């Protein structure tokens, strides 16, 4: 498609405005975490790392970081196990209700977090009688992390086709050896990308977490929310927010790079 120069500049400036809307506030958060002024006077007068040291020294923050990390890792592990298994089932076998299952797996990402959260919270507290805690957070996060691993694995399996597995079996390898030597190595980068994405999504999730975390557990986003309106905590909140941005953006960036690499060089 060709567009006139005028239109091109108009579109580019629109895109610039859009990106600025997203990224300027984020940059301000990160810059302010190094701003020596307690009230974030702008422009920053001098550079300091004292808020970072304070945040690192803060037990509440450290605990919250630990919870977020644990929940993220567990939710990712579950997503890897279930998402990969589902992708195998859907891509390799024909069975009754296959399309329905595929849809049911993908559906939770389109549900509002509030709905998922309330539904899970009701189920845990009233129907099942399970007290909320780390395990319920992990289950809550798994509802949307399974999808990303599933999607990544399914796309790769479909692209791989079945002929590599057939070739391996033809050359004398049984099912297990074939999976170990052929299927898994060719699937690994897709799984890794899916896992990074899942971790990124889980690490900064707040809505579902609010409903599924017990009173004793604060993940990083919940800690921020609880401390947001305490003026003397503001500098530390900034640091935590900056950390959240970095820890959740980095895996997603890496994940995208990985998927691109494998599309260009994986198969021929």
């Amino acid at each position, binding site marked *: 498609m060709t567009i006139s120069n005028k239109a091109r500049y108009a579109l580019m400036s629109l895109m610039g405005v859009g990106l600025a809307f997203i990224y300027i506030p984020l940059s301000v958060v990160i810059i302010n975490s190094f701003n020596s002024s307690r009230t974030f006077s702008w422009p920053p007068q001098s550079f300091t790392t004292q808020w970072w040291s304070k945040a690192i020294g803060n037990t509440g923050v450290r605990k919250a970081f630990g919870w977020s990390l644990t929940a993220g890792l567990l939710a990712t592990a579950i997503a890897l196990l279930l998402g990969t298994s589902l992708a195998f089932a859907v891509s390799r076998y024909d069975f009754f209700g296959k399309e329905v299952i595929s849809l049911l797996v993908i559906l939770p990402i389109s549900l509002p977090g509030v709905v998922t959260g309330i539904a899970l919270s009701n189920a845990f507290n009233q129907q099942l009688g399970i007290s909320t805690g780390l395990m319920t957070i992990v289950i809550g996060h798994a509802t949307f992390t399974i999808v990303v691993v599933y999607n990544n694995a399914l796309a790769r399996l479909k692209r791989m086709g079945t002929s590599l597995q057939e070739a391996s079996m033809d050359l004398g390898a*049984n099912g297990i050896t074939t999976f170990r030597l052929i299927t898994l190595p060719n699937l690994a980068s897709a799984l890794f990308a899916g896992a990074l994405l899942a971790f990124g999504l889980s690490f900064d999730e707040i809505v579902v977490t609010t409903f599924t975390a017990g009173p004793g557990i604060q993940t990083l986003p919940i800690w921020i929310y609880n401390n947001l309106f305490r003026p003397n905590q503001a500098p530390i909140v900034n640091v935590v927010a900056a950390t959240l941005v970095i820890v959740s953006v980095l895996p997603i960036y890496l994940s995208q790079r990985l998927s691109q690499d494998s599309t260009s060089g994986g198969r021929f």
Partner: protein
Amino acid sequence: MSQTLRKTLEFISVVEPASVIVSIRNLSRTFGSVKAVDGVNLDIYSGEFLTLLGPSGSGKTTVLRMIAGFEKPDSGTIELGGRDVSQLPPYERDVNTVFQDYALFPHMDVISNIGYGLRVAGVAKEERIARTEKALEQVRLTGYGDRKPAELSGGQRQRVALARALVNRPSVLLLDEPLGALDLKLREQMQIELKELQREVGITFIFVTHDQEEALTMSDRIAVFNLGNIEQLGTPREVYENPQSPFVSEFVGQTNKITMDGRQINIRPEFITVSKSAERGDRIVKGKLHDAIFVGATTRYLVDTELGESIISTDPSGLLDVGDDVVLSWESEKEFLVK
């Protein structure tokens, strides 16, 4: 019936030392409501180059995949070296396959690809390396061992796929349209190389193709498939010169179907001479030269005849121009009847 029997006896007496290595009996396979393979019987001799020839959907690939073990038959048996293997998984059958898309493992280099079968069979490392190197040499790829499949050309990938299968010394090598993805020049070169390689290693080749010229060039015998069954089984010469069904005569080579004296006769274009006056044989038909189509090595002359039918000839005599009155002539003994 007696003619078939005589032919069979003739055949047996010619290749007496050959023993049957693959024996297929009443093999059938249905996909949904489609009978892909419908009661195939076929004996394949040790050391021969047998081609399964047919259009797409004729069942030839399904037969090959059932011999390999990728598909299970609905009924019937496949014996390999006297043992019924039809229910065994692919890794318990002494056959190897060269796939249409090569199916090289993208994460392994050429050496690891070729050595894969030996590795999973637990062959010791020194022997593995020696045999892999020899296989590389056999397909003339010495020095390419550390390349990844993505760094090879189509023809080179093809050879790696071939080496990967042959290095295991299977009793039968299955080839699923392996030359289909190559360009014409490379394909013709590979046809010759494949045939030479087969003579050299002495392994039975079962080769699937839809290209009749390829089949005629390479095979010891051809099984012509149509609608899930074998329409004719014979040497390239038998299949070409004496097609046993209308389908075979149409699919292998070109055939003129002419109604003369109230019956249909069939004759290949190269047996008909087109000229200004009758020159050859006892059949003579007059006509007008409608078109001359240059197709490289030959020219096809399309003649509108007095019989009301068009006849194609590829054997001109003298200078001919479109629109000339011409005479077609041939020997009636070159005609063949189709049952």
